[in-house]
């Protein structure tokens, strides 16, 4: 449904090199790689936020609805959660239902800055779902959460993925453990400029083995 042909574009700061890949319905991709290698840049390119990436580089995007969970909640701080969800197309009932789905029942009239970090992130996730996305982009969804909150959010996202088998997902993470729970496909971004070093589509049982094997075989000391 989506085809990436980002062919060694000059991004001003040469972060990404050639990235060729296709994304199909139901793909759950975990995008791994060292910090600062350009994982968020790739996510932004896919979302159409990187103006240096020509539109032709990401084929099929205009037909897709995209939900993007940024690292910050990026809800409008002057609007209630309910209004934030309605702004992207949900009606009042849907907004209430989605907030319930992420564990924020009855918080519709709260302002984003009245919430804790974890709650705000879940509210932002509800907004992602409010657009009925074909493609869900998650940028380090578990970063800076305590282990309990991170675990809850992980379970929540896994549940959402289960209930929407048609939706594709790309999740940027540092943690192989996230991939184990969420992914059926792994991307590993590395190098200078960065390329996809592996793109493994694996059935459920095989994924962890592949991941562990790859990580073992990888020279993680750099160079």
């Amino acid at each position: 449904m989506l085809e990436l042909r980002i062919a060694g574009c000059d991004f001003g700061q040469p972060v990404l090199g050639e990235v060729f890949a296709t994304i199909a319905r139901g793909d759950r991709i975990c995008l791994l790689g060292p910090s600062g290698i350009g994982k968020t840049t790739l996510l932004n390119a896919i979302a159409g936020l990187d103006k240096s990436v020509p539109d032709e580089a990401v084929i099929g995007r205009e037909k897709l609805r995209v939900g993007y969970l940024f690292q910050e909640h990026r809800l409008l701080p002057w609007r209630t959660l309910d209004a934030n969800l309605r702004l992207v197309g949900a009606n009042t009932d849907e907004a209430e239902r989605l907030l319930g789905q992420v564990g924020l029942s009855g918080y519709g009239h709260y302002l984003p800055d009245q919430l804790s970090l974890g709650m705000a992130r879940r509210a932002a996730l509800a907004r992602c779902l409010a657009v009925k996305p074909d493609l869900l982009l998650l940028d380090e969804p578990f970063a800076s959460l305590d282990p309990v909150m991170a675990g809850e959010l992980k379970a929540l996202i896994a549940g959402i993925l289960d209930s929407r088998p048609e939706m594709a997902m790309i999740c940027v993470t540092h943690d192989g453990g996230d991939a184990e729970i969420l992914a059926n496909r792994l991307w590993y971004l590395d190098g200078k400029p960065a390329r996809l070093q592996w793109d493994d589509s694996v059935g459920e049982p095989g994924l962890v083995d592949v991941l562990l094997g790859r990580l073992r075989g990888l020279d993680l000391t750099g160079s």
Partner: protein
Amino acid sequence: MKGRAGRPPLWSYWVVLPSFVLLWGLIAWLLQSPLLPTPLNVLDTLIRESATGELWHHLGATLGRVVVAFSLAMIIGTAIGIVMGRSQTTNALFDPLLVLLLNLPALVTIILMYVWFGLVEVAAVMAVVINKVPNVAVTVREGARSLDYRLEEMATVYEFTRRQRLREVWVPQLFPYLMAATRGGLALIWKIVLVVELLGRSSGVGFQLHMAFQVFDVAAILAYSLAFITVVQLIELAILQPLERRSSRWRQPEAAHA
């Protein structure tokens, strides 16, 4: 609200202002000069002018010019400011002109407008607008430069319409700047409008002050000034402050758990 931090308690107004009037009355009573009427004389004039309808006619004329000039200046200045804040090219093109206009004395603009277009209403309002637009543009430009790119990206991903982007993303962020432009703007525009009226209109507070000046009618000058100050304060209390309170309701400094 931050703007109020430096404001003294309300009772000081009720002590200082009456004391001032008392002192003024005392001096006027001692001097017994037509050049310094007593507060009662001024009140008398105020009541008389108000009864004949003169006061309302001229106050209304001034208010009308202020409203029209202010609205035009805000709309034009905001548009220019946003574009300048978002586009390097436009900024390079307009910034030198802004510097020129900002340093042009209001009096010069007024004279030129009257010379070029005649002593007509359009020239009067234009002169005020031209004086005010650069201030608004400079203030709003600062705001437009500080717009949060993260919310811009969010609005792009979620395909906000132009209208939504303006209403939901830009205006709330620009609000403090628009408010600053409004306050500065009203203060400036009131004063320029009076000069405009004094120089070339036959209605308005400025015109009445001019007439009173020619016959040294100090009571009338003070009466009109008083009426004028009252209207400006009413606008501040009835429009600006409620607007500011309403629009900063979402700021909740105590609410930050994160």
